[in-house]
């Protein structure tokens, strides 16, 4: 009954003082938008962190860091290193009864070049070094033959797994490919760094050639991103043991293997890694447990992830507090506006009281007005948030191309990023703004409500 009347009067008042209303709203919109932005950014970061960790290795791997406890005393600096040899690690993996599949494959060294069966059948390829666990972590499906096993991986046997597309181009069919020998010629680009300044130098290009045996054929699945059409002559990846590339290119062992202070294990069951983790702990303690100074870390990626997202959410909360201050400023602007409004309408308050308005009637009227200002601001703020989110999202490719790291660029382009504010963000920021509106509107509204009728009527 009074609701409509309150709405009518609040609307009239807002329209009457357009400029003042808009300035007040801008204050609140800025506050609301900053809360909205911060909550959204926090969401996006946690999302990306999650996707990045999972995507980078394809599953839940276990980090083993020998010599350092990342959650422990940071001042603890052991005198010596606590390395493990390659043999020790592989023997350990062999002893886990399949709980641990292999160490993780993150070799960054590829061979690019030609494979040929004879003069007529050749194929341009990139040969990528991985470990035996890649079959599982990349979720690839083999149509013929098999993936190389842990031992082939460990000793860098000259074996490869190719795609069904490459198999068809080279051998006519997938079934014909298995067991065949291929010649290849190509080159390996090895990044170089100045040993003193660590500045990148020109890559060293090493020419390589040799024979490899096709062990298996996997089914090529488009990643669905690029609008590619499956064609017979398209270039698809060929996988071989990383160690094989290290051997033919005469490289030092790759970094993950090199130090053996840090090892990334691939567990058989990515959802429950407790058994595997216990095994790794025992393995570590067996060798160095008698040394009092020995510390180590065993943590799976999920745990790492929650450490990261935990840090992100703490930062987000800190930023929300900071942006809430701008909302507070918006609230003070609103309070000021409402105080002016109430003073301007003193006479009107007097008239209304003479006609029988109660204090609560007057209070409700002004509270309604400040709530309306806030609601409109919220709507505009959320709309702007979505609008700018949409603009950013549709120009995401261009924005990502500004990122100075190609790897991160590639990753970002392939992770489905949403910049528009989440429902969560909208609810949080809207609740904040409405609360600010009511809290800061209350004082002016009370001031109006408590006016003495005669004094209000005498107001010039």
């Amino acid at each position, binding site marked *: *009954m009074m609701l409509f*009347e309150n709405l009518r009067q609040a609307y009239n008042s807002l329209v009457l003082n357009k400029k003042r209303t808009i300035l007040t709203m801008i204050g609140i919109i800025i506050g609301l938008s900053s809360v909205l932005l911060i909550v959204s950014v926090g969401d996006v970061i946690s999302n990306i962190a999650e996707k990045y960790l999972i995507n980078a290795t394809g599953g839940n791997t276990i980090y083993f860091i020998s010599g350092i406890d990342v959650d422990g005393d940071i001042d603890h600096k052991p005198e010596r290193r606590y390395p493990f040899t390659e043999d020790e690690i592989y023997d350990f993996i062999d002893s886990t009864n399949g709980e641990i599949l292999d160490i993780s494959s993150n070799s960054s060294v590829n061979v690019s070049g030609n494979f040929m069966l004879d003069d007529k059948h050749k194929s341009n390829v990139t040969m990528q070094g991985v470990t035996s666990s890649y079959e599982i972590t990349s979720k690839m499906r083999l149509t013929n033959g098999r993936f190389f096993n842990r031992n082939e991986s460990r000793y860098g046997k000259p074996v490869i797994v190719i795609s069904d597309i490459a198999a068809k181009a080279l051998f006519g069919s997938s079934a014909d490919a298995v067991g065949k020998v291929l010649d290849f010629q190509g080159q390996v680009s090895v990044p170089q760094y100045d040993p003193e300044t660590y500045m990148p130098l020109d890559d060293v290009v090493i020419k390589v050639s040799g024979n490899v045996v096709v062990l298996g054929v996997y089914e090529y699945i488009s990643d669905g991103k690029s609008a590619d059409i499956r064609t017979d002559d398209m270039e698809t990846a060929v996988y071989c043991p990383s160690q094989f590339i290290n051997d033919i290119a005469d490289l030092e062992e790759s970094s993950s293997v090199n130090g053996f202070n840090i090892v990334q294990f691939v567990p058989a069951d990515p959802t429950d890694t407790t058994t595997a983790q216990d095994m790794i702990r025992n393995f570590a303690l067996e060798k160095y447990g008698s040394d009092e100074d020995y510390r180590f870390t065993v943590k799976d990626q999920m745990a790492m992830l929650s450490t990261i997202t935990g840090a992100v959410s703490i930062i987000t909360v800190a930023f929300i507090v900071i942006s809430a201050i701008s909302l507070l400023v918006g609230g003070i602007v609103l309070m000021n506006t409402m105080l002016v409004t109430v003073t301007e309408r003193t006479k009107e308050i007097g*008239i209304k009281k003479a*006609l*029988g308005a*109660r*204090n609560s009637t007057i209070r409700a009227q002004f509270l309604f007005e400040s709530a309306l200002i806030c609601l409109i601001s919220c709507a505009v703020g959320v709309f702007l948030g979505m609008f700018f989110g949409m603009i950013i999202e549709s120009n995401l490719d261009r924005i990502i191309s500004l990122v100075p790291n190609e790897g991160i660029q590639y990753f970002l382009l392939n992770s489905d990023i949403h910049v528009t504010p989440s429902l969560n963000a909208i609810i949080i920021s809207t609740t904040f703004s409405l609360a600010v509106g009511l809290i800061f509107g209350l004082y002016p509204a009370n001031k109006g409500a408590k006016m*003495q*009728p005669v004094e209000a*009527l005498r107001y010039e």
Partner: protein
Amino acid sequence: MTNEKKVVVDLQGIIKRFYIGQPNELQILNGMDIKVHEGEFVAIVGESGSGKSTLMNIIGALDRPTEGSYFFNGEDISKLSDKKLSNIRNKQIGFVFQNFNLIPRTSALKNVEIPMMYAGKGRKERTNRAKELLEIVGMAERYDHNPNELSGGQKQRVAIARAMANDPALILADEPTGALDTKTGRIVMDIFHKLHKSGKTIILITHSPELAKETERIITISDGSVVSDTGTKVQDAGGENNDAV
């Protein structure tokens, strides 16, 4: 016509001071005793600054006396809460001001509806009654005009319709013709006569001796005291009993 009418307004020893407790404390009303009976048409006259409006505000429950008792329809309202006073102002008293005091940017119809809205009347009832009242004061065609589109006389007629909205027992008019020319003032005055004939109790402050003479009773005030009262033509229903109903 019976001479026994109930007392609507009964002021006993009303004192009003301003700036209480301060060095410039000011006593504006010096203990007034006034009784107004139901159906009376009373004019209050006096020089400017004599305290007429101050008195009227107390009668209208807009202000509380510093001392003394005010019985309105037999109930002592001088100490009532804000909420109860607003109820009395809403339902029992209708105000007409010199400067009209219509609510700006609000149509004539809405202005008349406002007291009924505060009284909790339904939308339909409100609108019908407001149209009826505007018809009575001759403003039926202008019901959707805002105050800034009306002449002074028209505004005052809307204000009178608004004062009548909840059918109050008492109508208070503080110089209702003060801002109007003689001709328009005449129209307004005629409406008051009409209301009086229909049985309303009316108290009118005026500076015009002619208009005062048209009423039944003239109370003259000077320096916060009643100096003359042409006297009431009716008797109290319950003799001197203040609680008479």
